[in-house]
């Protein structure tokens, strides 16, 4: 989440870089009309080979004997299990050519078109089910349920949300140096041990809400807005208590497939408000453009470019925060590739430039990451959805323009950061997951003040 990373970086310059996460346990809840369907797509196929063989055999048997309806139903059943919804649809539509008075078949066709996202066709079949007075109440109720979901999906307004909360322990919550000897005004001084690395526990909560309004155009265009709220409260190191609010909004355009198939982009305006230790740290306003490009059924590229003006407020304890005022610009790209239905690889690269009023704080940041995510079938399928395990390695380099005289007028700061992250997740329900994360981060710096690990 770029916004949160942004908070971390900014918080870190007050006065020491703060690296956040070490170990956390969290629950994430998402809500969206299609959440169960989306999660279902991520499930690892169990015994795929044998199912595929049975599906192929069922097709050959139906192909050899199309008059046999039992064989046709068998094939439709296996096709659904294989997520070959088109195969099931053509088979069930054939049933209706044989006998149009089959409300349960219409019901299943409605469900299949719903799963494909062809909501208007699904709606037609489901309305025919409800119009049939002989339909059992259970079937009618199910049809009404899907029709309600279709209304939601075909509404021009769509809202999605995710709530993520947890508890986290950090070995170095304040990102303090491991040594008490640091540089100040170009001299070595001994720091009080309370300012070196301190372990702590914090609770954190994140809310992300996305609203889109379909403008009803072809190719599709919509107004997409998002709100991100984040808060972390330390048990003891409350000087690094952080909260963030970020709003982004703009029109998302889906390119004409004859010109650039699979491309969408959104110019947006953005507003950030960041508090540190319950005081406003800075506010930022700007804009950017983000986009996605689907290279194929298993590969997608996302990118973002932004420019914001940050304005800090000086405080009694930190009267030079306005030195950090200035522009921040960033360019990032990420690639997500499905190596198999249950294994995904990702990579990202980003460059960021900060032009602060104080030249000693102006810097370039370059960052790259690689990740792998494996989805497993649940060992307790009656209790949980699929499990997942993800690993990410990240490296970054920050180079400052000039020395910071308050630290060392003769040394221009350069930092290198390395981190590794492991995330284990268990889907508890269609929209709730339990997540455990472990992160190790090491920062090397040519100024001892900023070298630390966490």
């Amino acid at each position, binding site marked *: 989440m770029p916004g949160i990373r942004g908070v971390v970086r900014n918080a870190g310059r007050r006065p020491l870089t703060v690296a956040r996460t070490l170990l956390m346990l969290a629950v994430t809840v998402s809500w969206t009309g299609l959440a169960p369907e989306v999660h279902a797509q991520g499930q690892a196929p169990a015994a795929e080979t044998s199912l595929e063989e049975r599906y192929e055999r069922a*097709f050959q048997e*139906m*192909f050899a*004997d*199309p*008059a046999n309806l039992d064989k046709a139903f068998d094939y439709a059943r296996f096709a659904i299990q294989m997520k*070959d919804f*088109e*195969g099931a*649809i*053509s088979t069930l*539509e*054939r049933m209706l*050519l*044989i006998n149009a008075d089959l409300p349960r078949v219409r019901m299943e066709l409605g469900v299949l*078109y719903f799963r*494909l*996202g*062809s*909501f*208007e*066709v699904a*709606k*037609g079949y489901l309305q025919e089910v409800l119009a049939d007075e002989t339909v059992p109440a259970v079937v009618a109720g199910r049809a009404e349920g899907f029709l309600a979901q279709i209304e939601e999906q075909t509404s021009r307004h769509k809202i999605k949300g995710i709530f993520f909360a947890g508890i986290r322990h950090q070995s170095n919550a304040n990102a303090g140096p491991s040594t008490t000897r640091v540089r100040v005004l170009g001299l070595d001084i001994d720091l009080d041990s309370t300012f070196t690395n301190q372990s702590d526990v914090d609770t954190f909560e994140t809310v992300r809400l996305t609203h889109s309004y379909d403008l*009803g155009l*072809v*190719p*599709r265009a919509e107004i997409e807005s998002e709100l991100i709220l984040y808060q972390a409260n330390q048990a003891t190191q409350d000087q690094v208590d952080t909260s963030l609010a970020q709003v982004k909004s703009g029109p998302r355009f889906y390119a*004409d*497939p*004859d010109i650039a*198939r699979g491309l969408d982009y959104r110019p947006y305006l953005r507003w950030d408000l960041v508090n540190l230790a319950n005081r406003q740290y800075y506010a930022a306003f700007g804009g950017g453009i983000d986009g996605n490009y689907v290279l194929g059924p298993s590969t997608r590229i996302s990118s973002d470019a932004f420019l914001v003006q940050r304005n800090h407020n000086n405080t009694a304890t930190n009267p030079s925060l306005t030195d950090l005022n200035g522009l921040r610009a960033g360019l990032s790209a990420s690639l997500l590739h499905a190596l198999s239905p249950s294994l995904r690889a990702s990579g990202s690269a980003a460059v960021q430039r900060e032009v602060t009023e104080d030249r000693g704080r102006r810097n370039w940041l370059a960052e790259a990451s690689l990740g792998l995510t494996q989805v497993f079938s649940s060992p307790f399928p009656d209790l949980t959805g699929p499990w997942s395990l993800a690993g990410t390695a990240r490296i970054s380099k920050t180079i400052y323009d000039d020395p910071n005289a308050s630290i060392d007028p003769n040394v221009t700061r350069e930092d290198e950061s390395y981190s590794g992250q492991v995330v284990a997740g268990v889907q508890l329900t269609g929209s709730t997951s339990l997540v455990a994360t472990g992160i190790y981060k090491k920062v090397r710096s040519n100024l001892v003040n900023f070298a630390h690990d966490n």
Partner: protein
Amino acid sequence: MIDRDGLGPLPGRVACVAIVVGLLLPVSMAVAADREIGVTSIANTKAEGTPPSSDTRVLSTGTRMYFEEKVVTDPTGRAQLLFADGSSMTVGPNSDLVIDTFIYNPDTKVGDMTVSLTKGFVRFVGGRISKTKAVKIKTPIGSIGIRGGIAMVEMQPGQGMTADFLFGQEMTMEVGNDIQTTTTPGTFMTAATTGSTVTAPARREPAALNQRLKSF
């Protein structure tokens, strides 16, 4: 003069080869023409099929379909054709089509399929072929390409062609050099004549879409 292989002088050998080729070609062409590519999975009175090397017969459930077969339905006739790759095509009343191309390798699960629709309605549900290559439905006006999906195509002489995209990766309509593509389910495109342009994809009103679906 007798040469070493005993087939006689050269002119005689050429004649012999020519006869062999002359015998083989019709046989192999007949094999291609009679190649089974699908089956009639259901047919209502009255739908007829005409394979290239056989007489016209009334289609009924289980009737095998052949390469280059012509299918015609009367004002009350309907048929659903199921192809070896899992594709299916429901043919509406008053329709006339020919299965021009059907090549499918069940091992690699790729192939090629083209249908010429002279008039009438078809609803195409894509199988394996359309997952990797657009299945083409040609009409006297132009052609429609369907990738990985479900589409409904209507061709009425004097009125033009219309294609509704119900689901899938994409559907294209091509008339001359004019091509339009849609990836949005529930949209349609039309072209009136061979010289006209293809209309930009537009959303079909739900009631109108379902009315068209009932044509089958």
